[in-house]
């Protein structure tokens, strides 16, 4: 089983279990971090942000349940999939662990193939975790999309692309032509009208140069004359 790129945190107060788990998982390509107590486990979780946690329940002074409650905090689900691996087979513990949001519950001793199956399942069901950012935490980013300039004038360009850019949106163009025209830092925006829908999922966006000086206009005119 290939778990390349996955980080798994194992929390158990039994060093023998940590040794054997590390050996079992060594061939999967996963990165393993370990903790011998619930509090150390929480610290490792904060340091490493693992993709999966495998956690024992019967630990002291803080139990696996304490760890799960701490991990969950005020949220309505656990921030990372947790696989419980415990010798406790009581119905009460199983129900309580699932009510705290664990992905699966395995009873010790566990066969290696079963352990690997459950790990894979937990990771598959939680392949990518996501969170809705509140307005104060939202970040502005730039998205670079390949496009083709199909027409040029002193006022701007017509650009074919797979995305339809909203009218009057600030954009940044990057190409050899833009560099030649020394327009790399020049402000550009989409025009006031909607992008034209073309065939095969392409759109034609009108890109307008904002505040064109005579020097820039003259440079563009020279290029246009050359292309003609």
């Amino acid at each position: 089983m290939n778990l390349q790129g996955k980080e798994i945190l194992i929390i158990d107060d039994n060093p023998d279990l940590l040794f054997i788990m590390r050996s079992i998982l060594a061939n999967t390509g996963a990165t393993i971090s370990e903790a011998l107590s619930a509090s150390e486990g929480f610290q490792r979780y904060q340091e490493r942000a693992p993709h999966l946690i495998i956690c024992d329940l019967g630990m002291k002074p803080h139990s696996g349940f304490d760890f799960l409650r701490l991990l969950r905090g005020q949220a309505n689900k656990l921030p990372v999939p947790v696989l419980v691996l415990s010798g406790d087979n009581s119905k009460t513990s199983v129900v309580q662990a699932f009510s705290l949001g664990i992905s699966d519950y395995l009873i010790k001793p566990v066969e290696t193939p079963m352990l690997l199956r459950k790990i894979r399942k937990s990771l598959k069901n939680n392949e990518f975790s996501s969170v809705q950012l509140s307005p104060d935490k939202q970040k502005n980013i730039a998205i670079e999309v390949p496009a083709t300039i199909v027409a040029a004038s002193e006022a701007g360009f017509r650009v074919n692309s797979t995305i339809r850019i909203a009218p009057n949106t600030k954009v940044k163009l990057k190409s050899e032509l833009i560099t030649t025209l020394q327009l790399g830092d020049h402000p550009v925006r989409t025009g006031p009208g909607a992008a034209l829908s073309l065939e095969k999922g392409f759109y034609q966006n009108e890109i307008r140069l904002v505040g064109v000086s005579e020097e820039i206009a003259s440079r563009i005119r020279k290029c246009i004359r050359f292309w003609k």
Partner: protein
Amino acid sequence: MEKLDSNPSQAVQIEADIFELVERFLVAKKKEVESLREAVAAKDFEAIELFAHRIKGVGKMYGFPIVTDIGQRLEVAAKEKNKNNAKTELAAMYLYLCEVKIMKKVSA
């Protein structure tokens, strides 16, 4: 003493990549069992229960389901504070750990 479930003279096959780890495990557990003789004499059932609980959880993973079985019975004896049963199961564990033979599994 309860009869062992399988013949310890028959070698247990261990995956090559964990063979050394298993060897170390057997030596370490044998030492722990030896040190628990005093715990039995002192009726320190808490120490016996902790050992039993832990070895029960990993015996099978290291390739020894019998270790898990004995660990399970030892845990019960410790919980019940039954000195005779604890002594019996610890002896069974010691005997198994001393006699079990391991060999590297040959991959197909």
